[in-house]
């Protein structure tokens, strides 16, 4: 067999695994359940403000709510990937796949590609759903731009960080329960830490930009009331690659000023129960670059380790 035959074969194999993973996932009832939960949480974002505060038109609603939030991003990721590696070890079906003349890298990467494709389609749906509902509830939207078409792609990348955590845990433990609990646990742990740590020590908040999740919270400040992005609340972690990218594209000169907890009187505890923009901040461009870099570092790093573990695995029923 010459090398170009081999290359054709590898391409065919990637297609085979891609289709396998796609069908395995999409026909699973769990997928539908997770998808509906995500749609539900996302819908709360859209419908809750008018229900709670009364109806008001808001031409910036779509722009300000491009991101469904870390919980949706993580839930979808775990939902599609929890059984991708671990589940096949548990059921024993990995034994069939791995006995074919196909390298473990191809199995892993073919599955990874399928998960990305599924997430991309889900986020395209979310994008259209959000655009439609925003216009319907809040009136015609301002600030629409072609760069927004990149939102589903970047959301899928954000989800891929959690997919990578989950696949890494799956390849390591071969247990879908550990995979789910581990990924959700890391998400909750980091979210709680990101909420508490900056409260006591504002400077350490920066560390969260280097971990998966929400990162720091801030407010976009252009210094120009006419800018479409002025005053938008935004987060700087890997979950927010999409909104960082879009706001950056709309106004590259923007700064983010990080919110700080305004401490009240140390004795009475009064007067300080709010987060307000503080002295610290980043340029939006540096923040986008950092978040994109960290997203890729996690996706590449965790999957590299995942592939190593998968290749070393004994394949039998676990």
């Amino acid at each position: 067999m010459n090398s170009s035959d081999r290359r054709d074969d590898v391409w065919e194999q990637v297609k085979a695994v891609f289709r396998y993973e796609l069908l395995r996932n999409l026909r699973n009832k769990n997928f539908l359940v997770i998808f509906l939960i995500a749609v539900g949480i996302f819908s709360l974002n859209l419908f809750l403000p008018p229900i709670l505060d009364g109806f008001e038109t808001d031409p910036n609603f779509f722009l300000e709510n491009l991101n469904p939030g870390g919980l949706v991003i993580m839930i979808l990721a775990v939902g599609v990937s929890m059984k991708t590696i671990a589940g096949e070890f548990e059921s024993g079906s990995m034994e069939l796949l791995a006995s074919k003349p196909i390298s473990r890298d191809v199995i892993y990467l073919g599955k990874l590609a399928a998960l990305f494709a599924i997430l991309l389609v889900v986020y395209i749906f979310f994008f259209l759903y959000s655009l439609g509902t925003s216009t319907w509830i809040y009136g015609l939207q301002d600030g629409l731009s072609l760069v927004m078409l990149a939102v589903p792609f970047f959301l899928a990348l954000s989800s891929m960080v959690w997919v990578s955590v989950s696949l890494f845990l799956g390849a390591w433990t071969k247990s879908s329960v550990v995979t789910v609990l581990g990924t959700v646990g890391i998400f909750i742990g980091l979210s709680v830490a990101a909420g508490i740590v900056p409260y006591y020590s504002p400077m350490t908040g920066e560390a969260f930009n280097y971990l998966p999740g929400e990162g720091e919270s801030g407010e976009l400040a252009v210094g120009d009331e006419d800018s479409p992005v002025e005053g938008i609340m935004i987060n700087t972690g890997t979950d927010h690659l999409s909104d960082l990218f879009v706001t950056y594209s709309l106004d590259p000169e923007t700064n983010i000023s990080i919110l700080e907890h305004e401490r009240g009187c140390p004795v009475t505890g009064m007067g300080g129960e709010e987060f307000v923009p503080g002295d610290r901040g980043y340029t939006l461009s540096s923040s986008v670059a950092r978040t994109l870099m960290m997203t890729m570092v996690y996706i590449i790093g965790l999957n590299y380790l995942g592939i190593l573990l998968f290749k070393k695995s004994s394949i039998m029923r676990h």
Partner: protein
Amino acid sequence: MKALEIKDLDKHFDSFKAVNGLNLVVEESEIHGFLGPNGAGKTTTLRMIMGLLEPDDGDILIYGKNNDSKDLDVLSRIGYMPERPSFPVHLTSRELLEIYGQTYGIPEEVREARASRLLNKVGLDNYADKRTGKFSKGMKQRLGIAQALISEPDLLVLDEPTAGLDPGGRARMRQIIKEIGKDDITMLISSHLLEEVEKICETVTMIDEGKSVLSGSVEELSHSKTVLQIELMEITSRIINALEDLPKVKEVIRVDDDKEEIKVIASDDEDYRPVVSKTIVDHGGTILKMTDRSRSLEDVYLEVIDGGPEDEQLR
């Protein structure tokens, strides 16, 4: 040419040696039975052949090439049916055969046609477009065979293809395997069902506690010796010892716990009836019935595999 050669293979799980210096040779075009009791190390060995488990030591040569590094060219010549195969439940049999076929780089039209033909061959044509999650054990076994054949392999490795099937299912599986065997294909079939193997295989290797204890052709193994099956009034250790001391008697086995019946295995096929019956009578026994027959694979198995219940009775 040797299709498969295993030399001094070792594999341990923690401190337990599952495979311990195993040797095995399968010549091209033969149907080779791989026999051993539960836990003998059959599945572990087959997984190492397929590159699913890493051996601790020893060599596995497939058509002369080492499969230690999970050589894809080697794997592309083998079809493998795992023990109790498990499929992703949401895919249909046809989709699976097609997808597995695609991993061998088989062109689309070819693999589609082949999938249909194989599903027909194993009697699953009515279930071709049903998801495998609803399949019975027997249907999964048959799909297991079909997927192992999708690449028209040179070497077919089957791990207990008839395990867990009802008698009808077993007969059907045997029929399928025999039919496959008509083509020019090499097969290695693991089993602990001796009659099965006797009906299907030409050569066998028996293993116990991770070691090969015997190998040869079924013909040779079962017909080179005779077995006397004797029903006595009462079995005593005096009789057993006396029989065991006879020059050409190889082994004396008690057939069943609750029957006064023994098997005397002689080392060649002379007629031993006179000398055996005389010995029994001389030692105070009464013979109720004595039959002479050639040895079955089961007799051979019981002789060479340690720790069988019949063996223990007499020690």
